[in-house]
């Protein structure tokens, strides 16, 4: 134990996100939402039941009332701080918190950089707000001075442009809910949420256990999500109390999902902008319409979406794709089954819709587009991030040494850390919707890709199942898979399988065994 041990300080890859490479290539994939709801329930045994007090009905109602009043107080406080009057925007400069209560600076963003950016961005926000007010007036929708509209203009090119340039923060919740057709959902489900609250009040199961573990780990950097200590007594944050209810109700309402880590971030951010019931329905809409399958038990939806992203990268950013793709057979689609290692970094892009991946103001701009333009926005933004990183990624690849590990480690770090510095939401959005070759990517195309990926993956999974049935080894599996892929791509006919006589006879034997 006497060997000398030393540790280096963290080594972060430097990047320059202003270096934008613009190149155009066109082409397209095509897509129909294919989503089979996958109701797989896992066996559950409760280990360690928590010693929480079971409330009587009267106590429950009282505590619920109290919690809702406190929530309203917190939300009106947030509402005030995001109301965009010039003095309030400037007040942010004097604080260490942003207008939603998040810490302005972190490991990736220095407070000076935030303030410099905010000085410009807050002016932009005031200008945009005035334009929105004019747009609303033009459409005969009057908005009270401090109020928020519950109706928005009909869908149009113009409105889409406005959304892409950012919805005023104080209208955000209402706008998201309106665009996502939340009011239809509410109308069809009158009283459902209250009933769920009632039913889940004293519920303890695997899901509620997991929710408890994550509750206080949701936005610890946001002042409104921190417990309040007054005169030595600690009271749980009203936002967290509400978040608990929303997540518990959701786990009951959607048993095929239950509680999945990352839903805490989505629901938490929704609660900054929406009241409890609407936040709940918005969470339902997000998981069934915008990100179907993503949070299900087997997370297959994550793999499917990642597969679509890989198809998009291959199509639109071939240079980036060349760095990411690990498959030696460049002309097949085996990357759809065995996703490139890089896909680890992009899991959270889908699961938490960029919360914690991009700075919060940037994330909100992405959510604006998502709720107006459907899931294609997530893919477009993902592609944009890669496009912005392309010059640095290529730089790194030039430095490729004999040790391949060095390249990939630095690449992973860059792809993981660089988005956290993308404060300039306007630059990201302009690149995404104006300059890029994928600015015209349609929702239909994404849905077609998705269908293709789902079909390819289920064929592959079928193959794997048969493999385990006949006891194939790794090498055989790979060869069989490659053959299957080539066949699928119709690059060789069945006859040309003779190119590998050994494999051919081996396949025949396997087929016999299957029979």
């Amino acid at each position: 134990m006497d060997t000398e041990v030393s540790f280096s300080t963290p080594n972060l890859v430097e990047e320059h996100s202003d270096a934008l490479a613009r190149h155009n290539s066109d082409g397209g994939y095509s897509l129909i939402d294919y989503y089979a709801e996958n109701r797989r329930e896992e066996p559950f045994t409760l280990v360690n039941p928590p010693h929480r007090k079971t409330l009587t009905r009267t106590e429950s109602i009282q505590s619920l009332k109290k919690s809702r009043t406190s929530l309203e107080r917190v939300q009106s406080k947030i509402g005030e701080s995001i109301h965009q009057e010039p003095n309030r925007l400037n007040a942010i400069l004097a604080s260490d918190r942003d207008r939603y209560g998040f810490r302005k600076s972190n490991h990736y963003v220095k407070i000076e950089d935030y303030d410099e950016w905010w000085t410009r961005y807050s002016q932009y926000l005031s200008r945009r707000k005035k334009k929105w007010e004019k747009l609303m007036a033009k459409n005969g929708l009057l908005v009270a001075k401090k109020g928020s509209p519950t109706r928005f203009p009909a869908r149009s090119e113009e409105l889409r442009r406005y959304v892409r340039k950012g919805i005023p923060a104080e209208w955000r919740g209402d706008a998201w809910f309106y665009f996502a057709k939340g009011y239809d959902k509410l109308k069809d489900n009158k009283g459902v949420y209250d009933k769920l609250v009632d039913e889940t009040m004293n519920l303890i199961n695997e899901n509620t256990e997991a929710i408890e573990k994550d509750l206080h780990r949701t936005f610890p950097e946001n002042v409104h999500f921190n417990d309040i200590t007054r005169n030595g007594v600690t009271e749980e944050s009203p936002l967290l109390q509400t978040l608990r209810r929303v997540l518990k109700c959701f786990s009951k309402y959607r048993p095929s999902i239950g509680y999945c880590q990352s839903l805490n971030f989505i629901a938490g951010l929704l609660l900054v902008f929406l009241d409890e019931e609407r936040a709940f329905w918005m969470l339902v809409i997000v998981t069934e319409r915008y990100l179907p399958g993503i949070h299900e038990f087997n997370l297959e939806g994550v793999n499917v979406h990642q597969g679509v992203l890989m198809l998009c990268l291959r199509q639109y950013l071939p240079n980036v794709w060349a760095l990411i793709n690990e498959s030696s057979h460049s002309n097949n689609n085996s990357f759809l089954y065995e996703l490139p290692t890089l896909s680890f970094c992009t899991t959270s892009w889908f699961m938490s819709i960029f919360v914690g991946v991009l700075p919060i103001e940037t994330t909100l701009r992405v959510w604006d587009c998502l709720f107006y333009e459907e899931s294609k926005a997530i893919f477009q933004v993902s592609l944009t991030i890669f496009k912005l990183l392309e010059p640095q990624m290529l730089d790194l690849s030039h430095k490729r040494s004999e040790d391949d590990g060095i390249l990939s480690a630095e690449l992973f770090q860059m792809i993981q850390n660089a988005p956290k510095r993308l404060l300039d939401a306007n630059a990201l959005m302009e690149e995404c919707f104006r300059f890029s070759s994928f600015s015209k990517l349609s929702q239909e195309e994404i849905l077609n890709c998705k269908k293709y990926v789902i079909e390819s993956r289920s064929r592959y999974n079928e193959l794997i199942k048969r493999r385990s049935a006949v006891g194939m080894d790794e090498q055989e599996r790979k060869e069989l898979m490659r053959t299957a892929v080539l066949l699928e791509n119709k690059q060789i006919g069945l006859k040309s399988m003779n190119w590998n006589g050994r494999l051919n006879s081996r396949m025949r034997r396997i087929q016999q065994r299957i029979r």
Partner: protein
Amino acid sequence: MSKQTSVKLVLLGEAAVGKSSLVLRFVSNDFQENKEPTIGAAFLTQRCTIGTKTIKFEIWDTAGQERFANLAPLYYRNAQAALVVYDVTKPASFIKARHWVKELHEQASKNIVIALVGNKYDLVVDPETGEEIEGRRSVSVEEGKALADEEGLLFFETSAKSAFNVNEVFTAIGKQIPEETSKPQDEPSSVGRIDLNAPVDESGGAGNCAC
């Protein structure tokens, strides 16, 4: 000039046992209460010099919730080292750790170096005296050691909060990594399982808090 080798290391274990916190302590010597759950996986690196050997740890920190286990094989594929983490105050997390060890032995590369880590040691000791407080822990040192001996693992009790034993885990792993496996390779190495008699095994739960 010392030799530098890269070691791919993966962290596995139940949700909220402190996987990310161990990494944060090791990489940045920092601690954060209520650390956000990891979604999918996080990637970090840290260099560490042991004698004349420099090791660059490429660390994959994974999400703990059960359903993310479906993605885990991707993470431990080609990993040369693994930290299987549990919470010394949560018996269920120890059961989960046992499952992970089993899965790694069945699925991961043969000569993978595994460390079993009982985290949150700070919760069972008096911060003043460093003595253990009766009734705080749910998994005994003996249970941890027994599993480690049975399965041929390194064993440590740690506290990411107080920094107790954290660097020691990584150092011990670094020492166990044979130089010829520094690059991922498929063929089984002659080295086989790790040396059970290594002196680093002694450090678990000894109470000599490093802070």
